[in-house]
């Protein structure tokens, strides 16, 4: 046996313990990704003629997609949901983290868990208690009537804003925690020096604090984007994508096409949009983490 062969053998021996996970990842992670690409070029259907004859139809699904008005609507909805959630969660998370700094311990001990609770709750519970909170005779409408404000059918009149608020309620704590640990890392003496030099709170914020935590903002945005893109249950349970197409995001549209209209091929083509965005962002994310 030459040196190279024995090297390979040695390498293989060392990797034995890796094999179960590699196998799992290949079968249940890599294969589905490849299948996603493949199916998006086929006429795969759950029932009917096409179910029996799987055909390669080239870019057909993609052409249909470009012409499909609902695709454009759902891309738009996804972006609105994404931006609304991102801005809401991060701004609110930042405000909370900033205000929590150096506060009374007991106060933090009471307030902190309240913010965290929304994040710890499973998705179904979030959808459920937000549905009732925004319900026609729910808590928010009760508060409105207490202040003699008009009643609002939140889930019907402003469904997108409502699901965004629900997602903000759920996700803010994640950003809050990230910002808390980042703010802890801002050296107190720099801040102090700026203050001595006559910088106001606004200037300190723009010139000192934000530049110090810009990496956290970037990572946090990336992670939130990736998880928000995949949100299915929350919207599905609160509005089902409706009324009409008002809260129809890509995951819900994908679900409808695949499981209600039974067009798996077309549904997969739609999920390709998500997958491609996901892959691009993940590459960026990996780059950032690598350089840390």
């Amino acid at each position: 046996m030459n040196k190279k062969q024995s090297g390979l053998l040695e390498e293989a021996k060392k990797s034995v313990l890796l094999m179960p996970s590699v196998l799992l990842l290949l079968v249940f992670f890599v294969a589905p990704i490849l299948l996603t690409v493949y199916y998006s070029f086929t006429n795969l259907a759950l029932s009917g003629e096409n179910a029996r004859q799987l055909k390669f139809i080239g870019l057909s699904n993609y052409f249909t997609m470009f012409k499909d008005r609902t695709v454009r609507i759902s891309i738009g909805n996804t972006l609105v949901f994404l931006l609304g959630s991102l801005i809401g969660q991060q701004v609110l998370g930042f405000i909370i983290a900033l205000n929590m700094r150096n506060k009374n311990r007991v106060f933090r001990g009471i307030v902190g868990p309240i913010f965290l609770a929304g994040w710890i709750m499973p998705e179904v519970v979030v959808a459920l208690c937000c549905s009732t909170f925004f319900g026609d005779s729910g808590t928010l409408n009760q508060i409105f009537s207490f202040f003699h404000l008009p009643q609002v059918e939140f889930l019907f009149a402003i469904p997108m804003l409502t699901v965004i608020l629900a997602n903000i309620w759920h996700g803010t704590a994640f950003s809050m925690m990230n910002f808390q640990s980042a703010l802890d890392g801002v050296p107190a003496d720099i801040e102090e020096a700026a203050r001595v030099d006559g910088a106001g709170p606004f200037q300190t914020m723009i010139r000192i604090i934000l530049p110090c935590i810009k990496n956290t903002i970037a990572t946090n945005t990336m992670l939130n984007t990736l998880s928000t893109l995949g949100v299915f249950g929350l919207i599905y349970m609160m509005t089902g994508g409706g009324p009409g197409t008002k809260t129809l995001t890509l995951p819900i549209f994908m679900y409808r096409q695949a499981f209600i209209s039974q067009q798996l091929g077309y549904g997969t083509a739609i999920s390709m949009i998500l997958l491609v965005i996901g892959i691009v962002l993940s590459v960026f994310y990996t780059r950032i983490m690598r350089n840390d």
Partner: protein
Amino acid sequence: MYWKFRKTIPYLVLTILAVIFALPLLWILLASFDANASQAVKMPSQWTVENYKTILLNRANQRAFGNGLLISLGQSVLVVLIAGFAAYPLSRYELRYKNMFLYTILFMTSLPITAVMVPVYKMFLTVGLYDKIGGLILFLTATSMPYGIWLMKNFMDNVPVELEEAAWVDGASAFDSLRKIIAPLMFPGICVVFIFTFSGSWGNFFVPYILLQTLDKFPASVTLYQFFGQHGMVIYGQLAAYSAIYAVPSIVLYVLSQNYMSKGFNMAGAAKG
């Protein structure tokens, strides 16, 4: 006067925000003990535990909680074992493809699983894994592998190699030293991975919803959704009680994980499964 005012602003802001954040959950808590619960937060006119009793004594609900427990436990145990094995060579040996493998894993941690569910469904139909709890557990395990391996490797890196060297001299295999030396030393890390996986799995709605079909196999996440869809707008008390019971494991596990979380543990990629 001005200074005093400025000092109270943060408290005021936080208090208002906290009250708003607390209201949706307060509803669950109060409505679940209310004999005449409505959609809005209110003090129960008549306190009762009847809602909890009804939910807990129901056969179908018991099975749903059992299924959820089985799925989450199965997935967590598998993730800890398989990711633990994988972490060993990655942490201890020089391997040529190691960095590439690790970056691929890191890359995978953040991919949205939602995007591949339709093909997975088709794949499961084709190979006969559809509507099988075992198949569901395997898929969920695979989706947790990337962050599982990533975390396990990082925790294992913190266990000094010197401790193992003595064992190697005595002829112990990698498996032996993994079991007898490393595992006990990185127990808190193992707990973190276990807890992360368990609570992610317990809260997962989409994957079991797609990959299971039989009512009897659904975990609590799916049955709670169905309960919500069918009776949710009528029996608020029971709905709230169901949600409260279902949320308990997530809360307990979160509190537990805080105890195991070592200082400086800030691997953002894993925090959101």
